[in-house]
């Protein structure tokens, strides 16, 4: 190994108020590169929701809505809501792996804001949600689903779904930082999400549910998101469900983001 001389005047960008954003972007890029290198990690936002859609459309369509075509209007937003929730387990697992492999120690020993690694991981996941929505709407089109409203309303729905996904993600992030193994993250997150996704309006009209379950399903944040998407894409009053969805999104961030940041700082 040679020992060449090293110049010590490293050219740096002065630190400033935008450091958090810049560092988060660097770390988001890291997540993105990793996603691109392991495309099989995208199965949960590609093949598995397609499978759900096709199965549910033909199995439940006739029984619930009288026909597959009618049911698709309910189902496509429902499947998007369900899979946004399921896909959020990925970020928890990723954070847990980063912690186990000591990469977070590296980040914490650097002069960067402690929120950047978490924010970066969340932002890096946007691509997964964009892919999910694109594939779901595409699958719907193949099966006969059509968006009947305007382009701005359609895009507004997509944006709402992504915002909701990024806010919800703080909960599995917290689990990822607290759990002792990746398997535990998966177990805990799915155990919470299963009732949340099925006790909702995702697959059936909530009027058919017993009162106590209907009350839960109507208050369920996923139901509000799904109702917003149905209204924005198939017509209807979307102002109220969108407001509820945004309210829930804010609540997720306000509750889980501080806890996740605290867990990240405390981790030894």
């Amino acid at each position, binding site marked *: 190994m*040679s020992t060449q001389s090293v110049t010590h005047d490293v050219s740096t960008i002065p630190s400033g108020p935008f450091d958090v954003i*810049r560092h988060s972007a*660097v770390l988001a890029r*890291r997540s993105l*590169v990793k996603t691109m290198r392991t495309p099989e990690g995208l199965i949960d936002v590609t093949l598995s929701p397609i499978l759900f859609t096709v199965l549910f459309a033909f199995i439940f369509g006739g029984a619930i809505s009288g026909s597959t075509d009618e049911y698709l209007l309910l189902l496509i937003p429902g499947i998007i809501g369900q899979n946004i929730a399921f896909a959020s387990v990925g970020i928890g697992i990723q954070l847990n792996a980063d912690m186990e492999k000591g990469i977070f120690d590296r980040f914490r*020993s650097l002069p*960067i804001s402690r929120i950047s690694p978490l924010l970066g991981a969340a932002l890096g996941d946007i691509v997964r949600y964009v892919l999910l929505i694109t594939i779901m709407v595409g699958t719907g089109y193949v099966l006969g689903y059509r968006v009947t409203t305007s382009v701005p309303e359609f895009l507004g729905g997509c944006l709402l779904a992504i915002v909701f996904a990024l806010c919800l993600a703080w909960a599995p992030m917290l689990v990822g930082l607290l759990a002792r193994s990746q398997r535990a993250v998966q177990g805990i997150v799915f155990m919470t999400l299963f009732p949340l996704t099925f006790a909702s309006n995702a697959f059936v009209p909530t009027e058919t549910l017993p009162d106590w379950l209907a009350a839960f399903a109507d208050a369920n944040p996923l139901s509000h998101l799904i109702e917003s998407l149905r209204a924005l894409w198939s017509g209807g009053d979307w102002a109220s469900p969108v407001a509820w969805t945004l309210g829930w999104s804010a609540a997720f961030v306000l509750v889980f983001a501080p806890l996740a940041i605290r867990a990240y700082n405390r981790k030894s």
Partner: protein
Amino acid sequence: MTSEYAVEADGLVKSFKKTQALRGVSFSLPRGKVLGVLGPNGAGKTTAVRILATLLRADGGRATVAGFDVARHPSEVRKRVGLTGQYASVDEELTGRENLLMIGALLNMRSSAAKARATELLDWFDLGDAADRNAKTYSGGMRRRLDLAASLTGHPEIVFLDEPTTGLDPAKREDMWDVVRAIVSRGTSVLLTTQYLEEADALADDIVVINHGQVIAHDTADNLKRVVGSQTLHVRPTVPDDADAVRAILAAVGTPGAGVDEARPGELSTPVPGDRALAEAVARLGVEKIAVTELSLRLPSLDEVFFTLTGERQKAPTTSDAEEVHS
């Protein structure tokens, strides 16, 4: 800010649930020097490093790194230190170069500067050929080097090396030592933890020995070796009945007053003052016609260092490559 010391720890205390990892640890590292922190698994070495690198808060005591209090000015400390843990913390799914570019970007280096620095470090650490391969494909030694390169990206004033050679084979260990010497030759202060006296002796100016969260010795490498004996002579007589005669010979050639120890059943050992002791022992064994199956001169193991310093035997073997538990 200037301070005579790169690192000063004063009475550090830290507990985890049931275990008290540090019970008042103090030591100092003068600027531009190497401090070796020597101790077995679970002694508290990693905990001390994590406190100094601002990854962990001490329950009591204080520490300054590069003149800044680690509890009050952690971000100033982080700007000036590099940390290489005993687990090589590199992103396996990125290439070696991408790892270094990412660290450079997080250190606010301009992209041209980060690229130049990455190339320089990759060449220096013999990773040039593997630079654009995923770190997943690297050997253990390569990962350690990449990890070290990552911690040097921002030209830190102080580098913490937490058991940099644990788990490496002897040849790779010596390569790593060369790297550490090269870092020091550029004026960087190094705090190194290790389980091997040999490593501390090879690299460190001063050595701190810690055990059960307490400092049991803090001295220069030379003084410490004077106490524990720079080397030990081990003799295993073929006939066990010769043990007493061998014991007498060892007492005569060994460091005066050090005593003769039965390191393993049937194997006697004593610290010796210099290299001539071996020849003298051989001559005396020859005169008394004592046959031996084993005769060797070794640097004392950590176990022997501890025995000399504390009179207490370590229960578990301390030279294993097992990783230290720190939480």
